[in-house]
């Protein structure tokens, strides 16, 4: 596998990139009560966060439990409940959970999509029965009748429907599935379960720069991989929803550190990779991430006060965490890493 950075000449994957990808790949699976927090400091601005996330993503391909399939029907029921009980009748002109004090994070528009019917929108129906755990949705009658068609899908059938604006939980077949070719070469010898290539996953999160999603995406776009047959842009490989039109499934959620919103309704991720010092500090303060492992990446060409803000946060963490650098090998010159593990006693 070759790599090119900012359209420079193709070269073998350099040591610093290999280190970051491997670090993401080697990151231990989450262990309740053993939360880990790491911070890497880099000598310059870079796509380091994206590369660590890439390594972690490859690691998840090898775990049969890393998918959203099991909880999908429950997620649809929760979405339906929010829509019918709260959002549908909300009197605010614009969604604002803080003002409304509804307890939700984002609006539920009540709309579902299916890859089988790409031009149709399905709306959560009043006929949904939460006691019986039976979801119902409706769509315009194709025969032109006034009454909508209502469906009461089984959990299995509902697997082909997903919340509008979010990735589907899985593809029905391998058409549109991710290719394992690039991933196999990026982490040589990585175990990849083919089934995972057509399933989305919410357990890994990339938290973007505070300047907005575009800033993180742009820096990731500076890196391309190439094998004998084709080229791969880093944003495509990360499978973040909306970053690539060719990816139907998404195995990394994106947390927008500017708006402090996740790109989908998802439970707390196992691992959050935070891009930038400010993002790292923000992520540590987000309620939803309090149990998640966090790997922060920052560069050192920032103001002294900003360096100190990060240092003070790390010192505060040391009250409850101990250093855990066992997994670290030899660091490339210019990178420093601190890994903290929650104290058990």
């Amino acid at each position, binding site marked *: 596998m070759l790599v090119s950075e900012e359209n420079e000449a193709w070269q073998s994957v350099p040591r610093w990139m290999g280190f970051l990808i491997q670090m993401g790949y080697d990151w231990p699976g989450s262990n309740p009560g053993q939360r880990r927090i790491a911070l890497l400091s880099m*000598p*310059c601005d870079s796509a380091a966060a994206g590369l660590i996330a890439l390594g972690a993503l490859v690691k998840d391909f090898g775990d049969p439990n890393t998918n959203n399939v099991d909880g999908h029907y429950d997620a649809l029921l929760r979405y339906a409940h929010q829509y019918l009980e709260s959002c549908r009748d909300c009197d605010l002109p614009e969604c604002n959970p803080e003002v409304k004090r509804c307890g939700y994070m984002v609006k539920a528009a009540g709309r579902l999509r299916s890859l089988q019917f790409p031009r149709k929108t399905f709306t959560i129906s009043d006929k949904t029965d939460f006691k019986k755990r039976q979801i119902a949705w409706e769509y315009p009658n194709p025969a032109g009748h006034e009454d909508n068609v209502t469906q009461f899908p089984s959990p299995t059938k509902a697997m082909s429907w997903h919340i509008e604006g979010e990735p589907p939980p899985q593809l029905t077949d391998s058409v549109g599935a991710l290719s394992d070719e690039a991933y196999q070469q990026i982490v040589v010898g990585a175990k990849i379960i083919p089934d995972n290539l057509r399933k989305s996953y919410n357990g890994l999160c990339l938290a973007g720069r505070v300047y907005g999603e575009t800033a993180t995406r742009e820096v990731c776009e500076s890196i391309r991989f190439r094998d004998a047959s084709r080229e791969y842009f880093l944003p495509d490989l990360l499978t973040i929803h909306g970053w690539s039109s060719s990816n139907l499934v998404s195995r990394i959620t994106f947390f927008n550190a500017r708006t402090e919103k996740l790109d989908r309704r998802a439970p707390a991720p196992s691992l959050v990779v935070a891009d930038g010092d400010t993002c790292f500090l923000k992520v540590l303060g987000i309620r939803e991430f309090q149990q998640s492992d966090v790997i922060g990446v920052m*560069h*050192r*060409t920032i103001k*002294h006060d900003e360096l100190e803000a990060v240092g003070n946060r*790390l010192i505060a963490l040391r009250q409850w965490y101990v250093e855990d650098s066992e997994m670290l090998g030899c660091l490339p010159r*210019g990178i420093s890493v601190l890994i903290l593990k929650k104290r058990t006693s």
Partner: protein
Amino acid sequence: MQFTTSQMFDFLEQQEAGTIERHEVASASFGALRRSLRQIVLKLRDSDDQEALNASDQLRALISEWLTVPVSFDHLMLDAMVNMLGSSEAVQTRWGSDIRILYDAAHRAAMDLLSIDSPVREKLRAVIGELRRQERTFKIYCHRRARPHFETLFSSPADEPLPVNTFLHSVRDYRETGLFDDLIKFGPLRARGWGAAPDALLIAPRFNILIQIVWSGCNDEQDFGYDPVSSTLDAPPAEGAPPTSDMCARHGPVKWITRVMLSGDDPGAVAGDSRDIDELQVFREMNLPRENRPATLVQVNGEHGILYPPHTRILSFDPNQAAREPVGLRIPGETLLEGMYVIMPSIGDVDLGGVQAEHGHFSQIWKARLRESFSADAADLIKRLRAAGLNLVSLVSAIRHWCNAPSTVIHAPQKLSHFKILLQVLGVDNDDNSRPRSNFPPFSQLAWNEIRRSRGEAIQAGFQEHEIIDEQVLTILSALVPQIRETLANEGYFLVIPEGYGINGLVILFKVHGIEEGFSAPVTDLKVVRELRVIDQWRG
């Protein structure tokens, strides 16, 4: 960013350690100048006189600039000092002979500098010339306002000027520049304040050699080059020791070898003062909150005394019949001597605004005179004001401001002392016919009261209150000298202020039995009568 991350790592991989070439330059005259001024800064800093504190702050900034910017040795250095402090005589009058001695030494040193070139500028010229000769790419990191001082290094027609892109002024500039050979930094490496530079210079170098040119004694901040990650590791790398020749230190993940080169000589010009004291470090510590302050003891009997901050001007009485001004503000040990009396006012309701001047009544008088003098011969007025000790930097614009008619406030000098100088120079202090009664305070006091009222200041609040009360009591007591003598002759120790002076209360007279320096006491225990056995615990 003009390079890729891979190029950055390649660059770091190529060198085992970066190199800091530290040129420490010494100069006897400059050393004498900075040491003298530093001592003045420290001495005035211990005062509770606002004017002294202001002078201390201004001098501190001046020295800091000289130590972090390659200024030329020219008349501007001397002028800056003289504009701040005034003449030698004025310095002695205001702050005593010890400050004057230091000031005179500084003045002499500044005069000496006029005849020599700055050795740090010579060193910079030589370093840059050599880099150019070797065709090395280099940058200069400095504050934007310091840039002209570098540009003038090559200002003669034969010189090749420094290109604009040679200069880096911010962490952003540094972040966005490409890789280069050498970085020139004048002054110590500091994260904040004068001469500040980004920590990235050491923890994220884009160059091979850091050429640092510093005045001798100016040390880098110990925590400069802070990497939050490396600093939080269990076994932080050893760092922080002052650089020695060929010392190797680690800053974050980057290693540096420091080579120190000394030049020039500074034998030390002020007795008892080390030549290696780092002014910038001293000034930084000055900003830290202090529990105790230096103080001078005025013993008022066998068992009691009063501690005063240094350079406090104490309201006092000189019983000597020959004394020209028996009541005055005196400095302990300088002009307040044994046998004199400390006067402590015990004032009830102070009626500083008791004079029934309408808003702007007195101001109309002095402002008219000011406008008249300013329009007749502005240069002459400014010259006379400066000679009298009104040394504001932008005096012209200040005068224009004071000429403005009263609005919601009366535009006037901020300090009473400046205001008095202004009135004295204008000649309106004692010739106002509108004074209603002869035993009333002088025009300057009345006009100042009017200004204060217009500013809405609380009469009984804060620091200025004491100065104002002392000033007003001084005025009153000056008219009561016979009564004071009579009181003392009858072995009395207090005097009730008669009615009609705008102040109700009395003054207590404490005879000075002795004066002793070298105490360090809590602020709350200054300027109050304490038992000597209590005071003894604060001996330095």
